[in-house]
């Protein structure tokens, strides 16, 4: 028990003295997961909306693939991304294995199906006649899609939160493709694993607390935005 207490003390110490290494690790966590979430937002919402609104042969297959993708084990994603990015792999020429860019890719692969699946469900849940109404007000198809996305903004925000939550806390893929290199590709999760395996439990707990606080504050902001508009 005093180990946890030590950890909490260490956490406060690291935060308030603005320990540069911890600061760097935290910043990198935000950068990597933030960028990955943004990418997943862009791809996930656009493709999710298209699939929700279009009839095409094989649609059912695509929908079940997306729903399966929501539960993709992150470590499996990490393994496959690593294999692709190996020097001698198909994308080896990019030379981005063991870089934050690779981590962003892996995390984006993990988060995108989550955002896509939730977008799909959210758009499908809108009243079918709403599309007709929007067109009947003179909207082009593009304008219609934009208005529908705005209508579904609350569940879409939840989808983004789910995607972000999934990747900020991810460790397996991040270690594999990032290499946990000090000052370069080390993030809160990978650093926590390393400190634990070294036996530096107080530092590990401190990093864990910082990660929890980070995730909490970001979700606090997003939740506040979402609940402010909650139908009463």
């Amino acid at each position, binding site marked *: 028990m005093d180990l946890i207490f030590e950890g909490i003390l260490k956490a406060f110490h690291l935060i308030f003295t603005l320990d540069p290494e911890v600061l760097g690790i935290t910043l990198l966590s935000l950068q990597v997961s933030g960028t990955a979430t943004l990418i997943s937002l862009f791809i996930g919402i656009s493709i999710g909306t298209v699939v929700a609104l279009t009839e095409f042969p094989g649609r059912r297959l695509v929908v079940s693939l997306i729903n399966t993708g929501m539960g993709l084990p992150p470590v499996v994603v990490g393994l496959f991304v690593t294999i692709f990015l190996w020097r001698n792999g198909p994308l080896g020429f990019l030379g981005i294995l063991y870089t934050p860019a690779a981590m962003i890719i892996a995390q984006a692969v993990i988060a995108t199906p989550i955002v896509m699946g939730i977008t799909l469900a959210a758009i499908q849940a809108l009243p079918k006649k*709403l599309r007709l109404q929007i067109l009947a007000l003179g909207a082009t198809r593009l304008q219609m899609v934009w208005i529908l996305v705005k209508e579904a903004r609350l569940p879409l925000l939840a989808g983004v939160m789910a995607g972000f939550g999934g990747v900020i806390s991810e460790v397996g893929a991040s270690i594999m493709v990032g290499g946990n290199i000090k000052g370069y590709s080390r993030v809160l999760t990978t650093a926590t694993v390393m400190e634990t395996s070294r036996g530096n439990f107080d530092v590990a707990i401190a990093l864990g607390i910082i990660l929890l606080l980070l995730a909490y504050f970001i979700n606090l902001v997003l939740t506040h935005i979402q609940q402010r508009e909650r*139908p009463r």
Partner: protein
Amino acid sequence: MTAPAPLLAVRELRVRRGGALVLDISSLTVEEGTILSLIGPNGAGKTTLMQTLACLIKPHGGEFFFKGENVFSSHGLLQYRRMLAMVFQEPLLFDTTVFQNVASGLKIRGMNGSEIEKRVGQNLQRFGIPHLSERSARKLSGGEAQRVALARAMAIQPDLLFLDEPFASLDPPTRESLMEDLEKILRQTTTTTIFATHDRMEALRLSDRIAVMNEGRILQVGPPDEVMNQPRDEFIASFVGVETILTGRVVRKGRGSFVASIEGQEVEAVGEVEIGEPVVFCIRPENVTLAVSPRQETTSARNVFPARITKIVLLGLYYKVHLDCGFPLVAYVTGHSLENLSLQEGQNVSASFKATAIHVIRKTRGPHPPP
């Protein structure tokens, strides 16, 4: 003087669904500034017709012209769509304020902020809801929401307005008040409107012309009293509210009038027929008069029959009296009269109606000529 070209002209418009022909309009025109109602049973094609004319459904054949130009020409489509607006049975408002909702059609057209404010304010005023401007669309009653939907459509100042059973989900008092306001606004703005309803009274009240539809076709089009009082066939007759429809055969004919035998009784009507011809008589219940004591004076009514009252039904402001004269007959009677004559079920009365009040449908007629 030649009449101005109709705002909308439809030709040979066809829509299929699942292989079957669900819309088959050989021709239809709508004059500018008029209100056309479409009435018909569910599945008649009213919604399909309106959605096709609003370019929400693609026709499989035919064309239609707006202000003389073919809508399907290359640059025509978006331009045309931007000149129309549609309101549905459900308000289908957006999850934002009333103001933003009414402004949405204008924002779609890229109108600037101050113009939008003016238009929205104007239309909120028109529909009596300026106090709701900042309210969330989720917090409106059914009537308020439908007003917002109408304001949203009118804010666009459409050249053509489509209303698909807009009052169907509202309770009667709300429906009444909204219909009154809408009628005033449509007349003021001379907005050309196509309006679908299954309520004949609504159609009667709001329209310049009524089109009766069934199975994807327009069966009859014309001014309300023409369609109501001179239905072209039994289906239309029953749909427009003719309560008494009788079939019989011509037994005698005279100067412009004739007598048909209906269930053993002889009924006189006006029209050009042949002896032996089967005919259908349509008698509107408003045209049937009842008397309790045997008639002493000679009235101009040629048809007087002893009848027994089989049923009396209260219909809001008046009573529907079902009679048996040997053939079934329905009359409308005010509460006042019901009291005065002490009418009750089982009672024997005398029912009369003029020969000229009977609308005759000759059964030998072939397929309907175009309206």
